[in-house]
């Protein structure tokens, strides 16, 4: 327990240091994207790694958060903070309604349903131009503000993004080490055995789905108020796939895996810009090799090494 908070503190300090050292707004952007991705991936880790329910549609929840925030602030002049809160609420309700029938599905059928929902979402935001600006997206989304302090630069928003990222790590940590977390792991192992110990399996699956959708929504709102401009391609299934790759890369059934996975993959994809035409080839190759040889992810691999050393 103490170790967790100490590590968290170290990360906070490192990020603060980096933020003062880095002058380039490009690098600050990367650091911020890592934080945002961490928020989504930690939710996915809870859903996939701990509860064993795969979702290939989380980019849609990220999008619902971003678009709700954008629409509420640009069309209705709602205060950005309230918009963000409403966005989380809206996402939660949508996830709940979708989750009840969807999470009854298993395996490939669950993958297909979540993927299909993501595709439906993508098409709707492109086509429903009146509200979403269609393919052009929405511009002029206001910055978040506290009093007269406006989060209007890469550096300022960094504190906010990382605050939420660390907060979501704490949320995940608390949940995993609780009655609910144990129940989720149990139903991942065996739904029948879990239900025979009094765990309401379908209720828990839906609830964790809602929680992970809400986390994605928070990241979406932060993104909208950060870059002040959103467009549909950010929230397509390619991003959903990338999110799961981050989750697997770091280690699905670990908390730190979310941070490591989003960190590594965000940096790798930015680095790949240097090899231009070869970027997708290299990305694909890295993925295949990592999954072939360290399928438990980076953090999972390190933990395993530790256990082996103890033996």
């Amino acid at each position, binding site marked *: 327990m103490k170790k967790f908070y100490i590590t968290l503190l170290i990360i906070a300090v490192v990020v603060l240091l980096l933020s003062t050292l880095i002058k380039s707004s490009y690098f600050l952007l990367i650091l911020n994207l890592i934080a945002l991705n961490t928020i989504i991936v930690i939710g996915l880790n809870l859903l*996939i790694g701990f509860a064993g329910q*795969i979702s290939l549609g989380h980019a849609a929840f990220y999008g619902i958060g971003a678009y709700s925030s954008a629409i509420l602030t640009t069309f209705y002049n709602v205060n950005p903070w309230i918009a963000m809160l409403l966005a989380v609420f809206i996402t939660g309700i949508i996830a709940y309604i979708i989750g009840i*029938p*969807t999470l*009854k*599905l*298993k*395996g*490939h*059928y669950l*993958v*297909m*349903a979540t*993927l*299909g*929902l993501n*595709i*439906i979402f993508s*098409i*709707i935001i492109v*086509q429903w131009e009146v509200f979403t600006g269609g393919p052009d997206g929405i511009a002029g989304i206001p910055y978040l503000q506290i009093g007269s302090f406006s989060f209007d630069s890469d550096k300022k928003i960094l504190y906010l993004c990382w605050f939420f990222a660390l907060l979501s790590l704490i949320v995940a940590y608390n949940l995993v080490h609780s009655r609910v977390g144990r129940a989720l792991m149990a139903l991942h192992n065996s739904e*029948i*055995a879990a239900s025979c110990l009094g765990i309401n399996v379908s209720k828990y699956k839906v609830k964790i789905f809602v929680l992970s959708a809400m986390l994605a929504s928070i990241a979406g709102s932060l993104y909208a108020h950060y870059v002040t401009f959103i467009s549909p391609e950010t929230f397509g299934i390619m991003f959903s*796939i990338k999110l*799961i*790759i981050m989750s*697997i890369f770091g280690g699905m059934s670990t908390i730190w895996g979310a941070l490591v996975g989003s960190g590594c993959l965000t940096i790798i994809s930015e680095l790949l810009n240097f090899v231009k*035409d*070869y*970027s*997708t*080839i*290299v*990305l*694909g*190759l*890295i*993925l*295949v090799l990592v*999954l*072939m*040889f*360290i*399928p*438990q992810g980076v953090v999972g691999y390190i933990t395993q090494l530790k256990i082996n050393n103890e033996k």
Partner: protein
Amino acid sequence: MKNILQFILSGLTTGSIYALIAIGFSVIHNATGIVNIMQCEFITYGGMLTVTFYIFSKFPYFIAIPLSIICVSIMAGLFERVVIRNSKSKDIIILIFITIGASIFFKGLALLIWGSDPFMLPPFSGNQPIKIFNAVIIPQNLWVIGISIITVILLHLFFHKTITGKAMRAVANNKKAAQIVGININRIVFLSFVIGGFLGALAGIIIAPITTTSYDVGFMLGLKGFAAAILGGYGSMGGSIIGGILLGLLENLGAGLISSEYKDVIAFVVLILVIYVKPSGILGLAKVERV
């Protein structure tokens, strides 16, 4: 009324393509339990290799097409041998994401080789539209439907009349029993990828004269094929055919009668509703968990 027939005809065309792709997914699933996203690349490479052989190497169709199909089948088999078989984890999710990684790799490779411009292959036999009642159909549509029907019949014969085909069904039905009678499961898995490659490539080639082909054409087609397989009941050949045709019809009727912008929405909404009602697809069997 006139239009409906037209929509049905184009629905059957795309539907047959989806069905071929869906069967490819199902065959590999039955042998391994995974969703092979590389199927998308089989489609792309089928079309693009034919472009290379036909347009650039000036081979006639009857050489270019079989050659492309053989190349893709070899590529599929090698992918199984080199990548899938050597994966440390046999976890389904990991294997699926390995196929996604490989798909990203091959898509990048295709972009490097062929660039991002779409290519048009000429139709197999002229472009003169044929009138059927009061709808028109271009000959390539007939080629697509005809080749699909022949392929399905051949596959059916393969699965029901040859011992290897029966062995493949046996592996899908009961792996342990298949092992007991002396079937080499690895060989069947390999074969399933070769067949998957064959079907993907074929689909990619015969649709190319209608829709053009490019380095990323396989992604959307593959996705639809997967959707069709799920809709019909994953792993079942009959299901794949029904799912494919149904999806093709839904899309074209949806696009024609309701809204072309929302045709994919309509198709996917129906798909999702179907699996909500019947969680194992139209022809899929619900499995009873044993404790």
